[in-house]
């Protein structure tokens, strides 16, 4: 089956209905053993130093993987994706644009999804069938999320992994579902975590590899992964267009904050880590986040794939100390 890459979550129901193998290019890049090298490769080809690492990583990962067709999200994520699409087209890769309407207008979003269906020759019946199939898997991932914050049986890293993987179902829904089921069976016999500090992780998924275990080694566990949870389409909405309207990630920060605030309260979160990518427009939104959230917020910045550096470790440790003293 033909692989189709995408730059951030899109209605993958359409890809599955069209018999394509969905590949989240972010996952392809970050799980590569040579992720750092991929960035170097993109920079050698001319990508500026001060451009987001994900864009550079995706560029080189696409060329490495042999994927010939991608969907680039040109609105709702960053405008770098548009230029990425352009440079990839120079390499003969076919790039299909997809735009989340900035105003969350239902009609505009419906047209966008229909354009995508037309592009891939996917019928509405096949798309809805794919949605039913995916929703079954998503529900199981929602259970993993519940077991994270309500039963305290799942680590922050595991919660991150299963939810982030829902963006492309690890390119193999059946195998991914088996993995989830195996995990769900094993996890219930665990002893619950008993950490002192409960954290929310908000922002794009981290480019840093060892954040979650480091937090846990310091007595703090992430019980809410904002964006990753959004990838899993957490609201159980049956209408396809509504589902992607409710999905907060591609829309404004205030929409995201409504979801964040509600979850923070429900999950009894003590403090928030706001992760921002170097050179990303979302760094500006940190100002809004800090103003609107009443909990302590630590803003972490990541640039390239790496483990936590000594300075970031110092900042995290000091932050956790402060949270501990306050509570």
């Amino acid at each position, binding site marked *: 089956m033909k692989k189709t890459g995408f730059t951030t979550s899109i209605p993958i129901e359409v890809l599955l209905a069209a018999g394509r193998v969905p590949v989240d290019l972010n996952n392809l890049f970050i799980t590569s053993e040579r992720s750092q090298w991929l960035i170097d490769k993109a920079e050698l080809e001319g990508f500026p130093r001060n451009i987001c690492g994900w864009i550079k990583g995706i560029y080189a990962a696409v060329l490495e993987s042999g994927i010939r067709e991608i969907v680039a999200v040109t609105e709702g994520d960053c405008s770098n994706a548009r230029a990425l699409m352009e440079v990839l087209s120079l390499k003969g890769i076919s790039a299909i644009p997809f735009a989340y309407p900035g105003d969350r207008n239902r009609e505009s979003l419906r047209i966008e999804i229909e354009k995508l269906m037309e592009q891939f020759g996917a019928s509405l019946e096949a798309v809805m069938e794919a949605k039913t199939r995916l929703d079954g898997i998503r529900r199981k991932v929602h259970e993993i999320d519940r077991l994270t914050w309500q039963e305290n049986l799942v680590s922050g890293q595991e919660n991150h992994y299963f939810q982030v993987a829902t963006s492309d179902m690890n390119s193999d829904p059946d195998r991914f579902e088996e993995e989830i089921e195996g995990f769900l069976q094993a996890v219930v016999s665990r002893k619950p975590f008993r950490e002192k500090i409960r954290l929310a992780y908000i922002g794009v998924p981290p480019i840093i590899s060892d954040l979650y275990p480091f937090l846990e080694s310091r007595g703090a566990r992430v019980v809410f992964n904002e964006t990753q949870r959004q990838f899993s389409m957490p609201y159980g909405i049956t209408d396809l267009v509504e589902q992607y309207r409710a999905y907060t990630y591609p829309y404004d920060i205030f929409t995201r904050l409504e979801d964040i605030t509600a979850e923070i309260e429900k999950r009894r979160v003590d403090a928030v880590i706001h992760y921002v990518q*170097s050179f990303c427009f979302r760094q500006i939104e940190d100002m809004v986040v*800090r103003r609107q959230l009443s909990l*302590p917020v630590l803003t972490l*910045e990541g*640039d390239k794939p790496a483990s936590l550096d*000594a*300075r*970031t*470790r*110092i*900042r995290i*440790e*000091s*932050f956790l*100390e*402060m949270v501990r*003293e*306050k509570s």
Partner: protein
Amino acid sequence: MRIGIDLGSRKVKFSVVDNGAVVRLADYDTLGFYKRFGRIVDEELSFDLAATGMFAAEELASAALVVTGYGRNTLDFKGVKVVSEIRAHVAGAVFQTGLKDFTLLDMGGQDTKVALVRGRRLDDFVMNDKCAASSGRYLENMASILEVSLEELTSHWEDPVPLDTTCGIFGESELIGQILRGHPVARLCAGVNQTLVKRVLPMLRRFPSPHLVLTGGVARGGAFVRMLEAETGSPVIVPEHPQHNGAIGCAVIE
């Protein structure tokens, strides 16, 4: 008796505190100190403090050692208590100033930290990240380009030549360009001090509070303090031992 040690990027600072009073302060260049007295044994960093000649044998035998500073969380220390830099600095500033509520600006060799202290406790903080252009090391570089001492550099505040480059290294070539334009050294020095003020202001604006306390090696520069006061419109409190604040904090922390 307690000995506080602050392992800075440029200097290692020591304080000896007994019965609530600072008995002695000392410092040593970081690299030289690590080379001469530091050793890693089984992933634990140990210092031969007796060999430094800074402490009497009975002091080392009886005093509790508390350490903070760079690299402290990548290595374990043998037989000493380790605290985070931010806590050490807050404890030092509370001890030295006697204030309960204030904003602390600590500017060291590489780090700039801003902490909001309420009721003598750390309430929130920010640190520079990814870039160390607003640091003591930057001042040292600029002083060497201008061929003046650090004391000279940090004494000028009048009529600064505007310097715009955000990078501490590109800033060097910008400064060279301004030297060629014939600006007097005093105005160039003032320009360097002003860039420092500009870089810390956004961090300070996050935590407005009635008092601003300045610590770290940069606090020794009179011009910086004066320009910071002009920009913030309020007096800047520099404790008696700004550079040893972290080490004092280690020795007094609860």
